[in-house]
């Protein structure tokens, strides 16, 4: 039984990662999966806590996360070692890239270990101030974003490359399938480099990220201190140091291996491979007492909180939206997004909406929305437009930064208004018959005048951007959608069908 545990754990980890992959792949048309595709994010208590702090109201979708937290209180931190997909990725790369010999020699990590608590307190304070950049360090959001933005497009590239080869092998019956239009995301390099950096930290210590940086891990640590399912070592311990070496999070102190820091333990049960077989896990009355804990002085906690407050204030005061410091009127938010300030404080930048968007219209921002809006979604009509009968982005948003609106309501959300550049428009400039924008408009918001030149009816335009997307003018379109602050709801149009 004891021997099977490492294999079982590895199997569960791989399975958990595959489930995440499967859910991400299913985050697409027709979106009919019974389980929510953003399941992992909904179960993430760190995101839940910060969004609820930032939003200052209960987000129903995030409530299951507190169930996970409750389990952690009882049974200790099982999530990081068994289910965390980020942890799985880190374990995998630690194993194949960094052998024990290659690692740096041991050093006293006492001071480093409190770093993630600092990160956690920082984000708590920043969350209260509705500043969300700390989501960037949430492991679930991070791995989802990385998979969607950096790894999904190359996967499509490979698929499209193999497609014709597979098709030629198929005998007789010609299956001619269109390749998938390559999804593009401008920020993919930044996210890729960050991910590689996190994996590369494994050269210092196993699971460096989990031990010293991960804020979700810090939250679990705080709550798992009173766990009832604990490691217990009898007095026959020979101090062979095997468990000290094996522990992936360094929870067992070198000088006293019969004790351990229960709050750091991720329940991987590697220490059960104990040569004298003196280690067991059993239900014991909880105690707050821990050995060799981190030194979370009042000064440190208050310092982190204060740093969080001040950073949030500084970044809120940063006007960086466009180069001129003015409001970026090309920043179009997805339909049903909260008002800008609340949107950036609640959006965790997970990338679910980017994946689900059928037209690749949603793009991740870099600095277009200011520092506070890093990696938040925006509509870029020239790349893709907002599909009329689609409300997928709201349906997959775990933090309800984009509200899940029914189709009929979503069709009335005005995200922006299209404007025609008459000096570049084919019809206005050359007098040729074009009117592609009128033809494609789903809302009858573009009409032609007597010379078949397009005119935008502002009161009907939703800013979906199909006109900008399909405009045949080279380069920038001759019809461009501009946002103008908060989204508003248009008046429903009386049905024109058969009247």
């Amino acid at each position, binding site marked *: 039984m004891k021997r099977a545990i490492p294999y079982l754990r590895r199997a569960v980890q791989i399975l958990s990662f595959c489930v995440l992959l499967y859910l991400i792949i299913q985050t697409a*048309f*027709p979106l009919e999966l019974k389980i929510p595709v953003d399941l992992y994010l909904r179960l993430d208590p760190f995101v839940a806590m910060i969004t609820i702090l930032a939003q200052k109201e209960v987000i129903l979708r995030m409530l299951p996360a507190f169930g996970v937290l409750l389990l952690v209180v009882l049974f200790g931190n099982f999530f990081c070692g068994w289910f965390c997909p980020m942890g799985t990725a880190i374990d995998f790369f630690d194993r194949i890239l960094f052998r024990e010999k290659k690692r740096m020699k041991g050093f006293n990590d006492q001071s480093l270990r409190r770093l993630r608590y600092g990160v956690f307190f920082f984000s708590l304070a920043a969350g209260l101030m509705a500043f969300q950049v700390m989501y960037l360090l949430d492991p679930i959001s991070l791995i989802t974003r990385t998979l969607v933005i950096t790894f999904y497009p190359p996967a499509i590239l490979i698929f*499209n490359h193999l*497609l*014709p080869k597979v098709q030629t092998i198929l005998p007789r*019956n*010609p*299956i*001619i*399938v*269109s*390749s*998938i*239009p390559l999804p593009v995301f401008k920020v993919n390099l930044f996210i890729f480099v960050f991910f590689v950096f996190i994996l590369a930290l494994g050269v210092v210590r196993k699971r460096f990220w989990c031990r010293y940086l991960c804020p979700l891990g810090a939250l679990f640590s705080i709550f798992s201190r009173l766990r009832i399912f604990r490691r217990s070592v009898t007095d026959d311990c020979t101090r062979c140091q095997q468990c000290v070496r094996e522990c992936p999070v360094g929870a067992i102190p070198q000088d006293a291996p019969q004790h351990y820091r229960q709050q750091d333990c991720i329940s991987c049960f590697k220490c059960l491979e104990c040569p004298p077989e003196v280690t067991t896990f059993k239900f014991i009355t909880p105690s707050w007492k821990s050995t060799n804990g981190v030194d979370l002085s009042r000064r440190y906690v208050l310092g982190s909180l204060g740093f969080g407050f001040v950073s949030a204030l500084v970044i809120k005061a940063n006007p960086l939206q466009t180069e001129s410091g003015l409001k970026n009127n090309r920043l179009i938010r997805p339909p049903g997004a909260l008002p800008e300030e609340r949107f950036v404080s609640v959006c965790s930048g997970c990338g679910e909406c980017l994946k689900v968007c*059928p*037209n690749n219209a949603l793009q991740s921002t870099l600095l277009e929305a200011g520092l506070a809006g890093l990696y938040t979604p925006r509509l870029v009509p020239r790349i893709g437009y907002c*599909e*009329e*009968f*689609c409300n997928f982005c709201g349906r997959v948003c775990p933090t309800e930064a984009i509200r899940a609106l029914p189709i009929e309501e979503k069709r009335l959300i005005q995200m922006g208004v299209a404007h025609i550049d008459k000096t570049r428009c*084919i019809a206005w400039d050359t007098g*040729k*018959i*074009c*009117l*592609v924008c*009128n*033809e*494609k*408009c*789903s809302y*009858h918001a573009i*009409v*032609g005048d007597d010379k*078949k030149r397009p005119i935008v009816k502002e009161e009907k335009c939703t800013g979906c951007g199909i006109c900008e997307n*399909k*405009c*045949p003018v080279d380069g920038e379109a001759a019809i461009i959608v501009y946002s103008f602050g908060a989204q508003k709801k248009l008046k429903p149009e009386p*049905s*024109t*069908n*058969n*009247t």
Partner: protein
Amino acid sequence: MDHPPKKKITRRQFIKGSAAAAVIPLLGGELPFYGSLAHAAEEADLVIAKTGSPSQLLQAAMTPLGGMGRFVKKGQRVVIKANIAWARTPEQACTNNPDLLSALIKMCYDAGAKRVAVWDHTCDNYQFAFSRSGLKETAQKAGADIFSGHGHNVYKQLEVPKGKKLKTVEVLRDVLETDVFINFPLPKHHFATELTLGLKNLMGIVWDMEQFHKIDLHQCIADINTIRKPDLVVVDAIRILTTNGPKGPGKTEDIGEVIASTDIVAVDAYSAAFFKHPKTGRPFKPEEIKFVKNAFELGLGQIDLSKVRVKKVSAT
């Protein structure tokens, strides 16, 4: 994707068939029920079928043309260019009538087609257009493959030697290579070109449709039709869209007609009259639609319906 059930030939059918095969050359005449063995004489070039269910209309329209067996031979591959451009419901008449598409596919299989493929390069996202129009389900139920041209890999670049303004274009490879090509348009109002008819339906085999608007829309529509002449045109005029075209939703009118022909210009000349000219209020004359006129000038067909053998039939 499942194949249509193979029809077992019973002994009785076999005897009837062999007898028919033996007798037909002697009679030299009609035998409407054995389309795959021989087709009836062509009584008309353009058939208009009225009053009846979609499948009855199609049957009625095809018989005077010589039946489907005239166009589809045993073991051939058929491509139907349908109009599934928009994410609209069937009642809104912006996409083909599902029952008619289903009947058309079945008729191709009955004539012995090996495989029927339905193609369109949609304007809205193909997933939404295919599902909302109900045509994906319809096509697959009838045993056909349904393909969307959203990937660049399914196109082939070629010269347009007969084109006046369009010189090179990328069109669906399957349309070029198939044995039988059926154009399956539905007439609609269209703000930019007045109407969208059979000729314009072929814009849906092109990769870069927007390019047409830059060159000269009306001429390009005529030019693209020189690439491959459809073997058969079936016009879905059961319900037409008369305002807010081509995307709709707008006012619709139940015409209840199915038109079948081999002459695409004649078809367009006929179906243009379903619509009223916005200025004069009278039905459109074929010459008033520029792309129809351009296509006639390119010799793609007959614009003057008095020179075409037109037959009107009732399906019931």
